[in-house]
């Protein structure tokens, strides 16, 4: 108990004094996960619009499949990406294994189902008369899509932030294909798991507090958006 | 004659012109003005409308238009 208490005090000290190592790890974590969330959004928002507005065979099945993958285990994605980018894998020549880029790719895959699913339901939430209104005012089908996306902008933002939250809190992918290399691919979650197993609780707790703070901020932002 | 029509105007038949279905009856009033009425030919015959006969022109108030110069 004393040990935990001391660890907590030390951890607060690390944060307050802006300890270079803590800040470096937290900064990298944020950079990687923000990048993953943004890149995934750039792909998923248009893709979700296409799925939503187009009528095609197997649409329901596809949406069900997407929802099934909401809770895909991170280690499964880690394994999947590992197989592709390991030296012997089909994309091995890119030399991506154990790089921040590899983590970004893994996290993008991880958040794709959530993003697609949430954006599709955001678009579904838009009043159908709005589409008629846009068309009746002379919008082309592309312009109509933009109208609907703009109308659903808060819900779409929620989806992106949820995706970011999922990305920054995962550990399996960062560990398996990032490799937890100090000063290169070490992120908050991998650092916590390593330092804890080494018995260095201070750093773990400090990073834990930061991670929880990020989660808190994300939540506050989400609530703010959803209230609009 | 107790009738709801507000305008019951006395006059004399000046002229009757029979058409195929309707008859045009021109009634001259004491002041020299004329009123023209279109009624069915049968009615004109039934009422025995001939020149000089005393008649009333009956016009409902809601059917009177008013104009000014």
């Amino acid at each position, binding site marked *: 108990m004393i040990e935990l208490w001391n660890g907590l005090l030390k951890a607060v000290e690390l944060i307050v004094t802006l300890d270079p190592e803590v800040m470096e790890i937290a900064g990298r974590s944020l950079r990687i996960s923000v990048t993953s969330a943004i890149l995934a959004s750039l792909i998923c928002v248009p893709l979700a619009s296409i799925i939503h507005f187009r009528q095609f065979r197997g649409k329901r099945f596809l949406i069900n499949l997407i929802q099934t993958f909401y809770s895909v285990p991170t280690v499964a994605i880690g394994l999947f990406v590992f197989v592709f980018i390991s030296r012997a894998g089909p994309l091995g020549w890119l030399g991506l294994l154990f790089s921040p880029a590899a983590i970004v790719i893994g996290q993008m895959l991880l958040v794709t189902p959530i993003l697609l699913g949430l954006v599709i339901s955001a678009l579904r939430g838009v009043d159908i008369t709005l589409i008629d209104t846009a*068309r009746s005012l002379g919008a082309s089908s592309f312009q109509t899509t933009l109208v609907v996306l703009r109308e659903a902008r808060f819900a779409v933002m929620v989806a992106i932030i949820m995706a970011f939250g999922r990305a920054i809190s995962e550990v399996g992918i960062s560990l398996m294909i990032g490799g937890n290399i100090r000063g290169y691919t070490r992120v908050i979650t991998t650092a916590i798991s390593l330092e804890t197993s080494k018995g260095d609780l201070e750093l773990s707790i400090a990073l834990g507090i930061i991670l929880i703070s990020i989660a808190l901020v994300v939540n506050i932002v989400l609530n703010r958006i959803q209230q609009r | 004659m*107790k009738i709801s029509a507000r305008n019951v105007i006395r006059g004399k038949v000046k002229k009757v012109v029979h058409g195929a279905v309707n008859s045009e009856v021109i009634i001259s009033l004491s002041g020299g003005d004329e009123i023209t009425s279109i009624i069915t030919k049968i009615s004109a015959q039934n009422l025995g409308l001939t020149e000089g006969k005393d008649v009333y022109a009956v016009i409902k108030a809601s059917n009177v238009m008013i104009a000014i110069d």
Partner: protein
Amino acid sequence: MALIETIDMWQRRDGRDILRNINLRIERGEVFALIGPTGAGKTTLLRLIDLLDEPTSGKIYFNGVDTAESPAVRLGVRRRMAFVLQKPVVFNLSVYDNIAYALRWRGMRGSKLREKVEHIIDVVGLSDYHGRNARNLSGGEVQRVAIARAIALEPEVLLLDEPTANLDPLSAARIEELISSIIRQYATTIIMATHDLLQGQRLADRVGVLMDGELLQAGSARDVFASPRNKEVAEFVGVENIIDGVITSSEDKIVTIESQGRSIEAISDYLIGEKVCACIRPEDITLSLTRISSSARNFFEGEITWLVDVGPLTRVEIQCGFPLVALVTKRSAEEMKLARGQSIFVSFKATAVHVTKLQKHKIKNMERRII
């Protein structure tokens, strides 16, 4: 050439005919009101005209161009029209952006856009609401934004679906005022749907009666009111005296209609044996206390069942084999001491009777009727 012409247009949904054989011509600059009860198919017809939906069969020509040609043609034509939906929704944006949106789609930018939007906001009287989110406006204000959004596009055709149906009486009156000022100022072709036939009469040059998916009659409001094509139309336009009967004799266009043991004389082309109804305007019925000999072909004895004053007039309901409503001046009613239960004589001229078909006008599939 008509600006808009629909030819043999049908719309079927879920095995039901929503619209049947619509042949409608709208001339440029005309204000046309589609009147009919709720569910008659007015919205469906407006949506087809705005090319939001495609008809099951039939053609729509815009300025002589077949609109089924290609999606590009449809978009091009749709951009020359603007449609204010029945329950308009506004974009979750400011009033300004709501109006500017569709102008931007057409490539308008900068000061030209700004001036245009400001002007329109002024026209519809929303200057104080400029930056306000349109979602927070009242029903009447939302309707104004919707109309502003539409007229900002300077459409060749403005389509309005029940523009005042969901508003309180005061807002409705203001919107109607706005519409009539648009009619005066812009001389746009307007097609509006309304279940309120008086509104149609007030605003439109021509009305079309749409009932149960069929365009039963079109013409000036006066014509439709004075000579409804069949009983349904007569009832819808509020003709008060509609008496069902059968023609039993016809001589030189003067027909006798038998109803409830009484005969009504009228002028009509219908033939012996046809089931018809006689429509008589209450203003054309004269009452008397005694039997009078007059030129009026129709003279019946009856009993007063109800009396009520309406402004300077008195509405008298009479049972004379069939029920009749007469309108007389209040002064006459007083002088004649009219009272309930009193026996009375009614008379009306044969020419005051409008004879119309009792049965619904059935349109044969192949028959082409352009209204």
